[in-house]
């Protein structure tokens, strides 16, 4: 086999695998992109109820409550302009606290309550999820953090 032929085969194989990858990526992207919204954005627009997205902001002070079953927790996520009630069944992350940043993954019910399947709280004292910081800036409630 000549060098040219070999190069052709290699090129064809590369193009084929690239094509497969592109197809996989595109189909996966269409179904699996998870959008992020702040409570204000959520209040402003209507979203399809069957699609999961991420909601981020601060856990509203005094909003945390536990149902009688001891497992289901209810709280509100706020960007200090709007707030969305959230219900979550499971163990909260260690660093989950009122007044601090949180990102929840889940779906919005027709009753306006956001059912979370995953709660992501920050991992260290100084960290604020960038989306949450952005959301707070948008709602004009951002207070610049003290320099570390």
């Amino acid at each position, binding site marked *: *086999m*000549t*060098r040219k032929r*070999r190069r052709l*085969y*290699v090129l064809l*194989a*590369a193009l084929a*695998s*690239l094509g*497969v*990858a592109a197809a*996989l*990526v595109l*189909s*996966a*992207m269409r*179904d*699996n*992109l*998870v*959008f*992020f919204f702040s409570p204000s954005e959520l209040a402003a627009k209507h979203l399809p109820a069957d699609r999961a997205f*991420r909601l981020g902001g601060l856990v509203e002070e005094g909003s945390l409550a*536990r149902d009688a*079953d*001891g*497992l289901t927790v209810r709280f509100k996520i706020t960007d200090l302009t709007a707030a969305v009630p959230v219900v979550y*069944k*499971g*163990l*909260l992350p*260690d*660093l989950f606290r009122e007044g601090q940043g949180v*990102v929840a*993954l889940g779906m919005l019910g027709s009753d306006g309550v956001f059912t979370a399947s995953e709660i*992501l709280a920050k*991992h*260290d*004292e*100084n*960290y604020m*999820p*960038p*989306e949450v910081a*952005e959301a707070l800036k948008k709602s004009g409630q951002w207070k610049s953090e003290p320099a*570390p």
Partner: protein
Amino acid sequence: MIPELGHFALVLAFVVALAQSSLPMLGAARGDRRLMAVAGPAALAQLLLLAVSFGALTYAFVVSDFSVALVVAHSHSAKPLLYKISGVWANHEGSLLLWVNMLALFGAAVALFGSNLPPALKARVLAVQGMIAVGFHAFMLFTSNPFLRVFPVPADGNDLNPILQDPGLAFHPPMLYLGYVGFSMAFSFAVAALIEGKVDAAWARWVRPWTLAAWVTLTLGIGLGARWAYYELGWGGWWFWDPVENASLMPWLAGTALLHSAIVVEKRDTLKSWTILLAILTFGLSLLGTFLVRSGVLTSVHTFASDPARGLFILGLFAAAVGGSLTLYAVRAPALKGGGLFQPISREGALLLNNLLLATACATVFIGTLYPLFLDGIGGATVSVGPPYYNTTFMPLLAALVFVTGIGPMLAWKRGDLAAVLSRLTLAGVGAVAAALVAWRLETQGPILAVAGIGFAFWLLLATLIDLAGRFGLGRGRPAEIWRRAVGLPRSAWGGALAHAGLAVALLGMVGTTLWAAENIRVMRPGETTTLGGYDYRFDGTEQVSGPNYSSDFGRFTVSRGGAVVAVLTPEKRFYPVQGTPTTEAAIKTTAAADLYVVLGDPDGQGGWTVRVFHRPLAMWLWLGFVMMSAGGAVSLSDRRLRVGAPARRGLAAVAARPA
């Protein structure tokens, strides 16, 4: 005084790096041996100076010198010694100091053991290493100096984030960094070869041990990280397709491809420019990983507070390294003539396919990781890409890769006979189908994907065994003869087989822990029992315990199966008063069939506790797979032919003698 010494040593190392990056390069261009000879001592001086610097910082942490800002921010006088030491690299500045120490270690290894390298190549390799060092030293000195002082001196420190106070995590970053930085050797060799315009079998023979060593430590580092996530975070998972995890996976995938394509360069003197490109990309992805982790541009469960200005600096460094080397590549690569020709169905062809699959898999991870950043950058929506994306893109490619890995090693060089190989693999095919059927029978409620996964894992495992048995002629001749042949087999053959088997074993664990996983969450009062996966978990209650720098609610569970006690599990809920943070300490009982995993949540105020119980089948095999893969790499590394820096002169002569 000691921190000043460390600071001074760091500045000196910067100056030495400047000399190391320029003088030998100039010498190599002019053929001036004296200038080239600067490289070796400069590389050793770097290591010495950086070791002093690192030692000084470690000293500051160990004696809790709170006049150093970094110690105040990340340490506390009551912290156990191990975490005082690991605290040195459990933060941005210190981890960079560790990074450059690793870099200097590799540079010094070339200087010491590379005596049989051609002087010009050695000088250029060390000069490129020097350039990388200049970039990182400047980064540290100008944006993230670990030796900054504070005044007035605080009475005590802020403590290390308790989640990082863990023996597994003490060793995870150094391993990962050894891997990341180890790929800088392949990069330096690639750039030096491009400058020289020469890539040959001998070159591949020098590059491969470094790449292999880096790959071994990176594999181990990723494994340790996954293990840490598994038992420390208390979510029962070990991989979350988180950007920071992906940042370590991408160089691993590219490095694995590099490892295999370097074999082709060495044995068959072809695929040269591709291998060079891979070497550049692998290190580029390592730098990108550093950038992603250290800049905090992506949301991640691992992200720690960091400063975008630093990210910009690393991005510049990244652009300079990758942009510069790719430009050099574009100019020089066309001059690299390929050597041996081969049929599409051959060992070369299989290795090429492996490379294509790995590169494609790497590309899908790359897109998934960076697309949100890209969309954000052009002012689009804020999005994230979760596990489902990777399950649909990465997993099919992994399956194809596992399938090809079973066949590839059995094909002959140049021209392989696929039909003959497949007929030898009949047994593996039958075994794989049988294993899948057994899995289906045992776990009828599991998804079909899990059954397929088990089939693929057994396919690779059996194919590897058949290949190995064929190599030392099992069933041919007397046992003593077979034994002799087995012992005489090159270590690289054993290592390769072990690593491939490791992949198969790890795949078993991945399938079990993700697709067959079960969990149960409920409020339990002392004395109550919950059942999961055929085991009964009885909650015996909690007690208050205090540790060196925390207090803890110590839970007790008795696990039994069919009335017989299997284990007593003691999950904890700890509270670290200095940082005011609670942590969850999961309790895990590992058996060959499954991990029994209990997490203690919060008390409900009426005597009950939220409890989360996980059943994680085959988890043990995942960790064994990681160990096998890195052990395989290490065994291969111990092959005489590949011993670091010692490509036998005899080998070189043989290469030269072979007709081109």
